[in-house]
Structures are given as structure tokens and as C-alpha cells.
């Protein structure tokens, strides 16, 4: 089955940058990739002589999803990647696939995505004078969770408990002869790592919009 072979070739060539794939359908494969490996994925795909179809941009609340559609001898190949709204940047593929020039310009105008090193940035659809900071199809930063739940979500992902232990309470506990912290998930590195891994495996970190580098929820 050539769909399976094509998917496996892409996954093997891209390596860890290939995040996941949808179930293979007749004449369609879909692979989710890290934005950093987009150009590498396209280069691999070019070996199969694809026809570029379109880039579909989708506002996903906290992110903008970009779905690069190609046609490889009758099989639709979708490379899905995501740019976070805080940065909204990704490398251009126009130098690899010239036909993507207008599609990138369209996503740039309507969704506010900056395609780095695009050879001819500028207007495509919107009238002159349209403010560049108001892409019409880009919605506001919106989480999957209600804002009121964010402090609880942040604390759960980072420590495994719904409320942090304050230094003041630690002192008060000690004054009363209690250990400053109970033997909870946040009190040992091993337990904390385990709980954080659980958050990753359940996908709750992603749903809550947790930034592991900054150790907090993403903000607008």
C-alpha cells in the first residue's frame, strides 16, 4: 500500500520531529510535525515529485494550525504543523515550492502568520490601508479551559496539587512542629517528575497551554 510506505518514509526521514499521524485512509495520509522540521519534511516529500495544493490555516484558539496539502500521484499528503499565537512565525517554503507563494501570503494576511524569508511579502487579498495588526480571520487568544480555572490548572500541571505551599505557611507549620511541607508530589524531585510526566501523557499540559520552559501557562 503506497500510502503506508509514503507515511513511513516521511516519519523515518523526519525522525522525532514527526509528532503523530492520523489513521491512513485510501489516498490520504496526514502527519503532524514540529514547525522546526517543516522544511525538512517538504524536502523529503519533494523526492516523490508532489504537486502543491494549498495551505489551510485554522485558528485553534491558542495557536494557528497550518495544514500543508500536497498531491503525490493521487495521494493527498497533509503536513500539519502549529505556530503559537505569541510568536506566529514559521519558515517559508517558497524557495522549495514556488507555488506556495500566494498560499503563504494568504495565511499571513488573514491569520497574521509571519513566514520568515518569504521572497515577496505584501498584500494579496486585503485592501490597501487595512491595518496589518488586525488579520481578519485571526481570533483572540482563547484557551480550551475557562480563564477562572487557569490558576488551578497551572498549579496542577507544575506541582500536582491545586494550590501552592506558601513560604509563610511553611514557617507556620514548622513553628507548630510539622515538617515545612508534607511528603506530597511537590516535595521530592522524583515525585514531581512523575506527576509532570502524567500531565504530559494525559495531554492536559497541552490543553491547559502550559509552557514547560517558562514553567507557567501561556499568556496572550
Amino acid at each position, binding site marked *: 500500500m503506497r500510502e503506508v510506505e509514503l507515511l513511513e518514509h516521511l516519519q523515518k526521514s523526519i525522525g522525532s520531529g514527526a509528532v503523530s499521524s492520523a489513521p491512513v485512509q485510501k489516498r490520504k495520509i496526514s502527519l503532524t510535525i514540529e514547525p522546526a522540521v517543516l522544511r525538512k519534511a517538504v524536502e523529503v516529500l519533494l523526492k516523490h515529485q508532489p504537486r502543491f495544493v494549498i495551505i489551510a490555516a485554522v485558528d485553534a484558539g491558542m495557536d494557528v494550525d497550518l495544514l500543508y496539502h500536497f498531491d503525490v500521484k493521487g495521494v493527498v499528503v497533509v503536513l500539519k504543523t502549529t505556530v503559537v499565537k505569541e510568536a506566529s512565525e514559521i519558515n517559508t517554503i517558497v524557495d522549495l515550492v514556488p507555488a506556495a507563494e500566494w498560499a503563504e501570503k494568504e495565511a499571513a494576511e488573514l491569520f497574521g502568520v509571519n513566514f520568515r524569508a518569504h521572497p515577496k511579502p505584501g498584500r494579496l487579498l486585503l485592501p490597501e490601508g487595512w491595518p496589518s495588526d488586525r488579520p481578519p480571520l485571526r481570533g483572540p487568544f482563547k484557551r480550551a479551559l475557562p480563564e477562572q480555572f487557569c490558576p488551578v490548572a497551572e498549579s496542577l500541571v507544575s506541582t500536582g496539587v491545586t494550590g501552592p505551599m506558601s513560604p509563610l505557611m511553611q514557617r507556620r507549620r514548622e513553628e*507548630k512542629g510539622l515538617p515545612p*511541607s508534607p511528603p*506530597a508530589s511537590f516535595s521530592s524531585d522524583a515525585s514531581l517528575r512523575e506527576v509532570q510526566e502524567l*500531565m504530559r501523557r494525559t495531554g492536559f499540559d497541552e490543553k491547559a497551554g502550559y509552557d514547560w520552559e517558562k514553567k507557567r501557562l501561556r499568556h496572550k
Partner: protein
Amino acid sequence: MIPQRIPSVELATRGVLECIGVDAAELPGYACCPDPVVARLMDRKMWLALSARNLALAEGMGLDLLVLCNGCYETLTEANEILRREPEARKETSDILAGLGRAYEGTVEVKHVVEVMHEEVGVGKIEKLVKRPAKLRLAVHPGCHLFREAGGGDIWRKPKQLEELALATGAEVVHCKLDRLCCGFPMMQVNEELALKRNLLPKLACYQELAVDAVVAPCPTCIVQFEAGQMLLRKYGARYNLPCLHIVEFLALALGIPAAELGLELHRSPVEQLARKMG
């Protein structure tokens, strides 16, 4: 909640368990239960997996779980039931736990401290151990999740046990028509004013009319709501200063554990004054 917000409950529990001869061990590495309302609404898969991990930790120690909180009781009991009766959820959760190097076989029983005090220790034994009889009028707020009963059992079993424990101290328990009304804590996340005015305020008014000396609850979350809520209600012109404490703290006082050892000053309602009233 208890270690971070009202460690006096932790102190009281250690004291009471020692006093009545119950040997309990801590659960190293435990995470939040997590709470049965907000966490479950946010993400059921995460809620179940985190709860199952706690159950797995207890199973690894070969022990049942004693909980001091209605929310913990509901979550852990529900998680246990779901893992027993929903094969798909069990498979999904087992896979997550396996990735952490853990497994849960479903052998742990979750028991609320009210059940343990009533069924394992017994009201008679507690009555005999009381050194400081409580000559007080008490309102007993069972909290919503204490009514949770697995397997279609009597939902009033634990609330009645709670009342009997309070009576064992010599206190008079008075009832109001709003005993079953939620304290309003979960609603605080969404609409603070509504939670305070529609839930907490009518209860406080009812208790004041009955001239109770204190409110006893088996749940730290309800206690936080009663205490912080009384302070927050001042901005709406309602002034109440009713002591609110955990049933285990009340038992600790009645069993003669010195108030000074219980950290009652960490409460945000006049629990220390109540302790002085008890002598």
C-alpha cells in the same frame, strides 16, 4: 488543601489518631486527589489518572486510604468505581500509569475519617475518652460529597455518623432547614457574589437564628468557604463571626488535647475563643 491552608486539621488528626490508638502512615509522593468538581470538569482523563496514581501509591504500601476531606473522598471513591466498571477508562488509565512504572489492581478501599471514627473506633469508645465535654450548641454541616455512597447504599449513613460523633462529645446538635445546602465553594470559581449570597449567607443567617456556638464540618474546603466567606461577605454588608472547624479538631479538643498544640490560631474564624469556651 489541609497542609497548605489549615494545617491545624493535620495536627488534630495526628493527635486524635494517637489518642485513640489508630496507626496511620503518610502516603509519600501523593498528589492532589484531585478535586471532584473543577479538575474533573477541566479534564476527566487527567483527573482519573492522577487519582489512580494516588490509589496505586496506597496499594503499593498495602494500605487502605483514610481521607480527611469530602472532595478527596468523592474523587478517590468515584475513581475506584470507574476503574472497576469501565473497561475502556481502566485500559486508558492503566496505560498512563504503566508509562510511569506504576499499576493499580483496584484493591484499595477509600475511607472518610468520619467512617473510621464511627465504625473502626466506635462512638462508645470516643464517649469514654472525652475529657472535656462540649457544652455547646453545634450546627453540623456534612457537605455535599459526604452523601456520596458507592453501590446504591444509604446516602445518610456518613452524615448520621458525623452527627453521632459530634453528639459523643456532649454537644447539642441543632438542625436547620438548610443543612444540606452546599457551602458554595465550587461556585466561587465562577460567580463569587452568587456563591456567597445564595449559599453561604442563608446558612449563616439560619445558624445565627438558632444561636449555635460553632459549625462543625468534615471537609476542609467547606471550612475555608465558611471562614473566608464570612470575611468576603462584609463587603456586601453582612457581618458574621461564627467559628467553623473540622470534626477531627472538635474531637481533639473534646479528647483533651491542649488547644495550644492544635494551631487553632491558623483559623480565620474565632476557633480559639471556642476552645476557651470548652474550658
